[in-house]
């Protein structure tokens, strides 16, 4: 049967468009609008042109936060993706234990961000925290409130603790979709464990792993609550990531103009990287 083309059906999505415009598009446009203005309160605004963008681009503050953010996302991806795959490879494939492990693995994902932050904030404390107290008792000097390296280590381990299971679950789903015939063929060819992984499991997991990378990148690039609860961006500015810096600027100092300009640049970077990931993903699918 010939399909009729009727573009009038597009009008049916109009209510959604209005809703999205009201809750997302117009607020975003407002941010763009504020980025070019200055205010001293009382809802009185003055045109400031490109001033805020120029100031931010020349200041170390935004660049430092951006490098910290990129470093953080890079490090957690470099740990979580291989670790998640390793965990998935060792998870039981069927039986009661498969279900038990699945439930256990999904537990960290159910804990709200601020609770994870609080857990680690207390866990790492030198006076009452299990981790902090034990490490110091063993003679290892550890204090995440004073030492930037320790603060970084704490925030990274916390993120790995919270999110590796997401990668593991996604990789596990990818592994489960591989038919047994592939493994049997590999066995007949006397393929080594590494070759099975390299030529069967990894290519079959590539799609879900790309999704895992995209999800983890996006989430870690926008991370706010966990490091804010644990370190508050400190010591000094050592763990002040982009969103923490942005909130300091927008709500702490109430600098609407610079914060709006900052948000836009932040948004553009996220948009660019997400587009790259999305394009790579869809092209992998097409070749696939």
């Amino acid at each position: 049967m010939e399909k009729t083309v009727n573009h009038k059906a597009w009008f049916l999505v109009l209510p959604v468009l209005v809703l999205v415009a009201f809750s997302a598009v117009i607020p975003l446009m407002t941010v763009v609008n504020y980025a070019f203005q200055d205010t001293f309160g009382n809802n009185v605004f003055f045109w400031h042109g490109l001033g805020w963008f120029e100031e931010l681009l020349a200041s170390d503050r935004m660049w430092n936060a951006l490098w910290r953010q990129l470093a953080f996302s890079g490090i957690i991806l470099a740990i979580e993706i291989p670790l998640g795959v390793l965990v998935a490879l060792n998870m039981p494939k069927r039986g009661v234990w498969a279900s038990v492990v699945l439930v256990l693995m999904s537990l960290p994902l159910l804990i709200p961000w601020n609770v994870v932050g609080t857990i680690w904030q207390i866990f790492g404390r030198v006076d009452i925290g299990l981790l902090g107290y034990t490490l110091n008792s063993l003679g290892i000097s550890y204090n995440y409130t004073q030492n930037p390296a320790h603060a970084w280590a704490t925030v990274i381990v916390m993120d790995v603790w919270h999110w590796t299971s997401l990668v593991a679950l996604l990789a596990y789903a990818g592994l489960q979709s591989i038919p047994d015939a592939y493994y049997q063929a590999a066995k007949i060819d006397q393929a080594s464990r590494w070759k099975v992984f390299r030529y069967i499991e990894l290519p079959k997991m590539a799609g879900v792993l790309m999704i895992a990378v995209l999800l983890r990148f996006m989430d870690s690039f926008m991370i706010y609550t966990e490091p804010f609860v644990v370190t508050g961006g400190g010591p000094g500015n050592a763990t002040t990531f982009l969103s923490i810096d942005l909130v300091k600027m927008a709500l702490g100092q109430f600098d609407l103009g610079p914060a709006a300009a900052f948000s836009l640049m932040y948004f553009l970077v996220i948009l660019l990287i997400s587009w790259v990931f999305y394009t790579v993903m869809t092209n992998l699918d097409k070749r696939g």
Partner: protein
Amino acid sequence: MSWMAWTQPTAIFFIIIALLLVTFTVLAIRFPETPRRGVLGIETTRGDRLFITLLGSAFINLAWLGVMGAAMQPWALLICLVYAAAVFRWV
């Protein structure tokens, strides 16, 4: 709308973006096309190329502002136009 502090330049900016979107939607309906593969090695439609142009232009403008300063900003638009032409021709 004064309580939202809208200004003429931002209004013009958004009107141009909206007009571009409408134009490309009409073009897509009137003259359907098949995606093509360009220098990036990815399949793109006219809409994709518009997105690449707009996103790239934002970065070109920021880079120009960072390097040359606000006084020279109009010249960035010229580079963006060349960039847009290149994207639509080769990507």
